[in-house]
Protein backbone atom coordinates (compact mmCIF):
# COMPACT_ATOMS: atom_id res chain seq x y z
CA UNK A 1 0.00 0.00 0.00
CA UNK A 2 1.41 3.37 -0.95
CA UNK A 3 -0.78 5.36 1.37
CA UNK A 4 -1.20 4.49 5.02
CA UNK A 5 -4.05 6.46 6.56
CA UNK A 6 -5.53 3.83 8.83
CA UNK A 7 -3.88 1.00 10.71
CA UNK A 8 -6.32 -1.51 12.15
CA UNK A 9 -5.46 -3.62 15.18
CA UNK A 10 -6.79 -7.18 14.98
CA UNK A 11 -6.70 -9.56 18.00
CA UNK A 12 -4.21 -12.22 16.96
CA UNK A 13 -5.92 -15.20 18.55
CA UNK A 14 -9.46 -14.63 17.24
CA UNK A 15 -10.02 -16.64 14.02
CA UNK A 16 -13.27 -14.83 13.15
CA UNK A 17 -11.72 -11.38 13.35
CA UNK A 18 -8.48 -12.46 11.70
CA UNK A 19 -10.35 -13.86 8.68
CA UNK A 20 -12.51 -10.76 8.10
CA UNK A 21 -9.90 -8.10 8.93
CA UNK A 22 -9.33 -7.19 5.29
CA UNK A 23 -12.93 -6.18 4.62
CA UNK A 24 -13.04 -2.74 6.16
CA UNK A 25 -10.72 -0.68 3.98
CA UNK A 26 -7.81 -0.35 6.42
CA UNK A 27 -4.49 0.50 4.74
CA UNK A 28 -2.48 -1.50 7.29
CA UNK A 29 -3.62 -4.58 9.23
CA UNK A 30 -1.83 -5.15 12.52
CA UNK A 31 -2.32 -8.65 13.88
CA UNK A 32 -1.74 -8.21 17.57
CA UNK A 33 0.30 -10.74 19.54
CA UNK A 34 0.81 -8.36 22.46
CA UNK A 35 -1.97 -6.79 24.52
CA UNK A 36 -4.83 -8.70 22.85
CA UNK A 37 -3.36 -12.12 23.70
CA UNK A 38 -3.02 -13.73 27.14
CA UNK A 39 0.49 -14.97 27.98
CA UNK A 40 -0.66 -18.61 27.94
CA UNK A 41 -2.03 -18.22 24.40
CA UNK A 42 0.94 -16.47 22.76
CA UNK A 43 1.96 -19.69 20.98
CA UNK A 44 -1.55 -20.26 19.61
CA UNK A 45 -1.82 -16.67 18.36
CA UNK A 46 1.55 -16.91 16.61
CA UNK A 47 0.49 -20.07 14.79
CA UNK A 48 -2.88 -18.57 13.85
CA UNK A 49 -1.42 -15.30 12.53
CA UNK A 50 1.35 -17.15 10.72
CA UNK A 51 -1.18 -19.39 8.93
CA UNK A 52 -3.42 -16.43 8.15
CA UNK A 53 -0.53 -14.51 6.58
CA UNK A 54 0.25 -17.54 4.43
CA UNK A 55 -3.31 -18.46 3.40
CA UNK A 56 -5.80 -15.59 3.70
CA UNK A 57 -6.01 -13.15 0.79
CA UNK A 58 -5.99 -9.65 2.27
CA UNK A 59 -5.59 -7.84 -1.04
CA UNK A 60 -3.42 -4.77 -1.44
CA UNK A 61 -2.93 -3.89 2.21
CA UNK A 62 0.20 -3.86 4.33
CA UNK A 63 0.21 -6.87 6.62
CA UNK A 64 1.84 -6.10 9.94
CA UNK A 65 2.24 -8.04 13.20
CA UNK A 66 2.54 -6.38 16.59
CA UNK A 67 5.25 -8.28 18.42
CA UNK A 68 5.67 -8.63 22.12
CA UNK A 69 8.36 -6.37 23.57
CA UNK A 70 12.02 -7.26 23.30
CA UNK A 71 12.20 -8.17 27.01
CA UNK A 72 9.26 -10.62 26.81
CA UNK A 73 8.27 -12.93 23.93
CA UNK A 74 9.65 -11.03 20.92
CA UNK A 75 12.25 -13.60 19.91
CA UNK A 76 9.75 -16.47 19.95
CA UNK A 77 7.27 -14.33 17.97
CA UNK A 78 9.85 -13.62 15.29
CA UNK A 79 10.82 -17.26 14.80
CA UNK A 80 7.25 -18.13 13.82
CA UNK A 81 6.18 -14.91 12.11
CA UNK A 82 9.16 -13.93 9.95
CA UNK A 83 8.96 -17.02 7.67
CA UNK A 84 5.36 -16.11 6.77
CA UNK A 85 6.55 -12.83 5.26
CA UNK A 86 4.66 -9.94 6.85
CA UNK A 87 5.26 -6.55 5.21
CA UNK A 88 5.86 -4.85 8.54
CA UNK A 89 6.49 -5.64 12.17
CA UNK A 90 5.39 -3.35 14.98
CA UNK A 91 7.55 -3.21 18.08
CA UNK A 92 5.93 -1.95 21.29
CA UNK A 93 7.63 -0.21 24.22
CA UNK A 94 10.48 1.26 22.18
CA UNK A 95 12.54 3.32 24.62
CA UNK A 96 15.71 4.00 22.65
CA UNK A 97 17.30 3.72 19.22
CA UNK A 98 19.16 0.58 20.27
CA UNK A 99 15.82 -1.30 20.51
CA UNK A 100 15.24 -0.85 16.79
CA UNK A 101 18.81 -1.76 15.94
CA UNK A 102 18.45 -4.91 18.00
CA UNK A 103 15.22 -5.92 16.25
CA UNK A 104 16.77 -5.21 12.85
CA UNK A 105 19.68 -7.47 13.80
CA UNK A 106 17.30 -10.28 14.72
CA UNK A 107 15.51 -9.85 11.39
CA UNK A 108 18.79 -9.99 9.47
CA UNK A 109 19.39 -13.38 11.05
CA UNK A 110 15.92 -14.77 10.42
CA UNK A 111 14.92 -13.50 6.97
CA UNK A 112 15.36 -15.99 4.15
CA UNK A 113 17.81 -15.31 1.31
CA UNK A 114 15.08 -14.36 -1.16
CA UNK A 115 12.81 -12.62 1.31
CA UNK A 116 12.31 -8.86 1.06
CA UNK A 117 13.38 -6.80 4.04
CA UNK A 118 10.59 -6.45 6.55
CA UNK A 119 9.89 -2.86 7.63
CA UNK A 120 9.49 -1.77 11.25
CA UNK A 121 6.95 0.44 13.01
CA UNK A 122 7.90 1.63 16.49
CA UNK A 123 5.42 2.44 19.23
CA UNK A 124 6.48 5.42 21.31
CA UNK A 125 4.64 4.93 24.57
CA UNK A 126 7.01 5.86 27.39
CA UNK A 127 8.46 9.18 28.60
CA UNK A 128 11.92 7.91 27.71
CA UNK A 129 10.82 6.81 24.26
CA UNK A 130 9.32 10.22 23.65
CA UNK A 131 12.46 12.00 24.87
CA UNK A 132 14.52 9.91 22.44
CA UNK A 133 11.96 9.97 19.62
CA UNK A 134 14.21 11.64 17.07
CA UNK A 135 17.11 9.26 17.73
CA UNK A 136 14.70 6.36 17.43
CA UNK A 137 13.19 7.78 14.23
CA UNK A 138 16.57 7.80 12.46
CA UNK A 139 17.94 4.65 14.08
CA UNK A 140 17.64 2.25 11.14
CA UNK A 141 16.68 2.15 7.48
CA UNK A 142 14.06 -0.52 8.21
CA UNK A 143 12.08 1.88 10.38
CA UNK A 144 9.25 3.40 8.37
CA UNK A 145 7.10 5.01 11.03
CA UNK A 146 6.37 5.95 14.63
CA UNK A 147 3.06 5.28 16.40
CA UNK A 148 1.99 7.32 19.38
CA UNK A 149 0.89 5.06 22.27
CA UNK A 150 -1.20 7.35 24.45
CA UNK A 151 -2.61 4.95 27.05
CA UNK A 152 0.72 3.66 28.39
CA UNK A 153 2.32 7.08 28.02
CA UNK A 154 -0.26 8.98 30.09
CA UNK A 155 -0.27 6.24 32.71
CA UNK A 156 3.51 6.48 33.08
CA UNK A 157 3.58 10.28 33.10
CA UNK A 158 0.70 10.35 35.55
CA UNK A 159 -1.58 12.55 33.48
CA UNK A 160 -5.33 12.08 33.19
CA UNK A 161 -6.37 10.53 29.87
CA UNK A 162 -9.24 12.55 28.41
CA UNK A 163 -11.23 12.53 25.20
CA UNK A 164 -10.11 16.07 24.37
CA UNK A 165 -6.49 14.91 24.63
CA UNK A 166 -4.86 18.13 25.91
CA UNK A 167 -2.58 15.92 28.04
CA UNK A 168 -0.97 14.39 24.96
CA UNK A 169 -0.79 17.55 22.82
CA UNK A 170 2.95 18.01 23.24
CA UNK A 171 3.69 14.29 22.98
CA UNK A 172 1.79 14.10 19.72
CA UNK A 173 3.68 17.00 18.23
CA UNK A 174 7.02 15.57 19.35
CA UNK A 175 6.25 12.28 17.61
CA UNK A 176 5.15 14.10 14.45
CA UNK A 177 8.28 16.23 14.46
CA UNK A 178 10.70 13.37 15.13
CA UNK A 179 9.19 11.35 12.27
CA UNK A 180 9.15 14.32 9.91
CA UNK A 181 12.77 15.17 10.73
CA UNK A 182 13.80 11.59 9.91
CA UNK A 183 11.62 11.44 6.79
CA UNK A 184 9.39 8.64 8.04
CA UNK A 185 5.66 8.35 8.72
CA UNK A 186 3.81 9.08 11.95
CA UNK A 187 0.59 7.57 13.28
CA UNK A 188 -1.71 8.89 15.93
CA UNK A 189 -2.91 6.87 18.93
CA UNK A 190 -6.17 4.93 18.94
CA UNK A 191 -9.41 6.65 19.95
CA UNK A 192 -10.76 4.22 22.52
CA UNK A 193 -14.51 5.04 22.59
CA UNK A 194 -15.63 2.91 19.64
CA UNK A 195 -19.23 4.14 19.89
CA UNK A 196 -18.38 7.83 19.56
CA UNK A 197 -18.21 8.33 15.81
CA UNK A 198 -18.25 12.14 15.98
CA UNK A 199 -15.50 12.17 18.61
CA UNK A 200 -13.40 9.90 16.40
CA UNK A 201 -13.94 12.13 13.37
CA UNK A 202 -12.85 15.21 15.32
CA UNK A 203 -9.84 13.40 16.83
CA UNK A 204 -8.78 12.11 13.40
CA UNK A 205 -9.04 15.57 11.87
CA UNK A 206 -6.98 16.96 14.75
CA UNK A 207 -4.33 14.28 14.13
CA UNK A 208 -4.22 15.11 10.43
CA UNK A 209 -3.91 18.83 11.15
CA UNK A 210 -1.10 18.18 13.64
CA UNK A 211 0.83 16.51 10.82
CA UNK A 212 0.30 12.80 11.46
CA UNK A 213 0.26 10.77 8.25
CA UNK A 214 -2.26 8.29 9.66
CA UNK A 215 -4.05 6.99 12.72
CA UNK A 216 -4.56 3.65 14.46
CA UNK A 217 -8.01 2.02 14.76
CA UNK A 218 -9.02 -0.35 17.54
CA UNK A 219 -12.26 -1.50 15.87
CA UNK A 220 -13.14 -2.10 12.19
CA UNK A 221 -16.01 0.36 12.54
CA UNK A 222 -13.44 3.17 13.01
CA UNK A 223 -11.59 2.64 9.75
CA UNK A 224 -13.87 4.52 7.39
CA UNK A 225 -14.02 7.59 9.63
CA UNK A 226 -10.23 7.71 9.85
CA UNK A 227 -9.77 7.24 6.10
CA UNK A 228 -12.31 9.98 5.41
CA UNK A 229 -10.50 12.38 7.76
CA UNK A 230 -7.09 11.74 6.18
CA UNK A 231 -8.38 11.93 2.61
CA UNK A 232 -7.79 15.37 1.14
CA UNK A 233 -11.16 17.14 1.13
CA UNK A 234 -12.72 18.24 -2.19
CA UNK A 235 -11.90 21.83 -1.16
CA UNK A 236 -8.26 20.99 -0.53
CA UNK A 237 -8.00 19.22 -3.88
CA UNK A 238 -9.65 22.09 -5.75
CA UNK A 239 -7.33 24.64 -4.12
CA UNK A 240 -4.23 22.50 -4.79
CA UNK A 241 -5.31 22.25 -8.42
CA UNK A 242 -5.54 26.05 -8.69
CA UNK A 243 -2.14 26.51 -7.06
CA UNK A 244 -0.43 24.01 -9.35
CA UNK A 245 -2.11 25.54 -12.40
CA UNK A 246 -0.98 29.04 -11.52
CA UNK A 247 2.57 27.75 -10.97
CA UNK A 248 2.61 26.16 -14.42
CA UNK A 249 1.18 29.31 -15.96
CA UNK A 250 3.80 31.47 -14.26
CA UNK A 251 6.51 29.15 -15.52
CA UNK A 252 5.17 29.29 -19.10
CA UNK A 253 4.99 33.06 -19.00
CA UNK A 254 8.48 33.29 -17.56
CA UNK A 255 7.12 35.20 -14.61
CA UNK A 256 8.73 34.36 -11.31
CA UNK A 257 5.57 34.95 -9.32
CA UNK A 258 2.40 32.86 -9.29
CA UNK A 259 -0.73 33.88 -7.46
CA UNK A 260 -4.16 32.46 -6.58
CA UNK A 261 -6.99 34.79 -5.69
CA UNK A 262 -4.56 37.68 -5.42
CA UNK A 263 -2.34 35.86 -2.91
CA UNK A 264 1.22 34.96 -3.86
CA UNK A 265 2.03 31.25 -4.10
CA UNK A 266 5.17 30.87 -2.06
CA UNK A 267 7.25 27.71 -1.63
CA UNK A 268 5.36 26.25 1.39
CA UNK A 269 2.01 26.76 -0.36
CA UNK A 270 3.37 25.05 -3.47
CA UNK A 271 4.79 22.18 -1.41
CA UNK A 272 1.48 21.64 0.37
CA UNK A 273 -0.43 21.65 -2.93
CA UNK A 274 1.92 19.07 -4.39
CA UNK A 275 1.46 16.82 -1.36
CA UNK A 276 -2.32 17.10 -1.45
CA UNK A 277 -2.46 16.31 -5.15
CA UNK A 278 -0.05 13.39 -4.84
CA UNK A 279 -2.13 11.86 -2.06
CA UNK A 280 -5.39 12.46 -3.96
CA UNK A 281 -3.91 10.79 -7.05
CA UNK A 282 -2.72 7.75 -5.13
CA UNK A 283 -6.17 7.39 -3.60
CA UNK A 284 -7.93 7.97 -6.90
CA UNK A 285 -10.11 10.70 -5.41
CA UNK A 286 -12.38 12.81 -7.64
CA UNK A 287 -10.62 15.91 -8.96
CA UNK A 288 -7.19 14.32 -8.75
CA UNK A 289 -4.87 13.94 -11.73
CA UNK A 290 -4.57 15.97 -14.89
CA UNK A 291 -7.52 17.88 -16.23
Amino acid at each position, binding site marked *: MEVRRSILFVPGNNPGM*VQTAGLFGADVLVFDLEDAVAPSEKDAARDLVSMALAEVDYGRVDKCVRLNSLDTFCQADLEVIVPSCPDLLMLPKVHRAQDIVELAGLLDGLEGPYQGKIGILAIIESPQGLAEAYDIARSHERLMGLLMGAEDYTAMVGSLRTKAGHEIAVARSLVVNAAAAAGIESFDAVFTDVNDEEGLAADSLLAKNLGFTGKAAINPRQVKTINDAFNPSPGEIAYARLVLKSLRQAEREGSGVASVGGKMVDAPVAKRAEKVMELAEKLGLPGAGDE
Partner: protein
Amino acid sequence: MKSVLKAAQAGTLESNDVMIIVEPGENGINLDLESIVKKQYGAAIAATIADAAKALGVTDVNVKAIDRGALPYAIRARMVTALERAGIGPERGA
Protein backbone atom coordinates in the same frame (compact mmCIF):
# COMPACT_ATOMS: atom_id res chain seq x y z
CA MET B 1 8.52 -39.92 12.58
CA LYS B 2 7.59 -38.27 15.84
CA SER B 3 5.12 -39.26 18.49
CA VAL B 4 2.89 -37.26 20.72
CA LEU B 5 4.28 -37.42 24.26
CA LYS B 6 1.36 -36.09 26.23
CA ALA B 7 -2.21 -34.87 25.89
CA ALA B 8 -2.56 -31.23 24.86
CA GLN B 9 -5.27 -28.86 23.72
CA ALA B 10 -5.55 -25.72 21.56
CA GLY B 11 -8.31 -23.46 20.28
CA THR B 12 -11.66 -22.41 21.72
CA LEU B 13 -15.37 -23.08 21.28
CA GLU B 14 -15.98 -19.59 19.85
CA SER B 15 -17.60 -19.36 16.41
CA ASN B 16 -15.10 -19.68 13.53
CA ASP B 17 -12.70 -21.52 15.86
CA VAL B 18 -12.00 -25.19 16.53
CA MET B 19 -10.90 -26.83 19.77
CA ILE B 20 -8.41 -29.59 19.21
CA ILE B 21 -7.28 -32.13 21.79
CA VAL B 22 -4.42 -34.47 20.90
CA GLU B 23 -3.42 -37.59 22.80
CA PRO B 24 -0.75 -40.24 22.32
CA GLY B 25 -2.06 -42.86 19.91
CA GLU B 26 -1.15 -45.81 17.71
CA ASN B 27 -2.18 -46.97 14.26
CA GLY B 28 -2.35 -43.72 12.39
CA ILE B 29 -4.22 -40.48 12.82
CA ASN B 30 -7.53 -41.21 14.52
CA LEU B 31 -10.01 -38.33 14.43
CA ASP B 32 -13.13 -37.91 16.52
CA LEU B 33 -14.84 -34.94 14.86
CA GLU B 34 -17.77 -32.89 16.07
CA SER B 35 -18.65 -30.06 13.69
CA ILE B 36 -21.57 -27.82 12.85
CA VAL B 37 -20.58 -28.24 9.19
CA LYS B 38 -19.72 -31.93 9.37
CA LYS B 39 -22.11 -32.89 6.57
CA GLN B 40 -20.54 -30.42 4.16
CA TYR B 41 -16.91 -30.29 5.34
CA GLY B 42 -16.29 -33.37 7.51
CA ALA B 43 -13.88 -34.97 5.04
CA ALA B 44 -12.13 -31.68 4.32
CA ILE B 45 -11.58 -31.04 8.03
CA ALA B 46 -10.17 -34.54 8.49
CA ALA B 47 -7.78 -33.99 5.59
CA THR B 48 -6.62 -30.62 6.95
CA ILE B 49 -5.92 -32.14 10.38
CA ALA B 50 -4.07 -35.12 8.90
CA ASP B 51 -1.98 -32.86 6.64
CA ALA B 52 -1.03 -30.63 9.56
CA ALA B 53 0.07 -33.66 11.58
CA LYS B 54 2.07 -35.16 8.73
CA ALA B 55 3.76 -31.81 8.03
CA LEU B 56 5.19 -32.02 11.55
CA GLY B 57 6.20 -35.65 10.99
CA VAL B 58 3.43 -37.06 13.19
CA THR B 59 1.88 -40.28 11.92
CA ASP B 60 0.23 -41.69 15.05
CA VAL B 61 -2.05 -39.55 17.18
CA ASN B 62 -5.57 -39.53 18.58
CA VAL B 63 -7.36 -36.25 17.83
CA LYS B 64 -10.64 -34.91 19.17
CA ALA B 65 -11.86 -31.82 17.30
CA ILE B 66 -14.89 -29.70 18.18
CA ASP B 67 -15.39 -27.39 15.22
CA ARG B 68 -17.42 -24.20 15.18
CA GLY B 69 -17.05 -23.46 11.48
CA ALA B 70 -13.32 -22.71 11.42
CA LEU B 71 -11.67 -22.03 8.06
CA PRO B 72 -8.84 -24.34 6.94
CA TYR B 73 -6.10 -21.92 8.02
CA ALA B 74 -7.47 -21.83 11.57
CA ILE B 75 -7.85 -25.60 11.77
CA ARG B 76 -4.26 -26.05 10.60
CA ALA B 77 -3.04 -23.45 13.12
CA ARG B 78 -4.89 -25.03 16.05
CA MET B 79 -3.60 -28.49 15.13
CA VAL B 80 -0.02 -27.22 14.95
CA THR B 81 -0.37 -25.48 18.33
CA ALA B 82 -1.88 -28.59 19.94
CA LEU B 83 0.94 -30.79 18.62
CA GLU B 84 3.59 -28.31 19.72
CA ARG B 85 2.05 -28.24 23.17
CA ALA B 86 2.15 -32.03 23.15
CA GLY B 87 5.89 -31.92 22.63
CA ILE B 88 6.15 -32.08 18.85
CA GLY B 89 8.46 -29.91 16.80
CA PRO B 90 10.71 -27.07 17.85
CA GLU B 91 9.92 -25.79 21.32
CA ARG B 92 8.63 -22.31 20.68
CA GLY B 93 6.92 -22.05 24.04
CA ALA B 94 5.95 -18.66 25.32
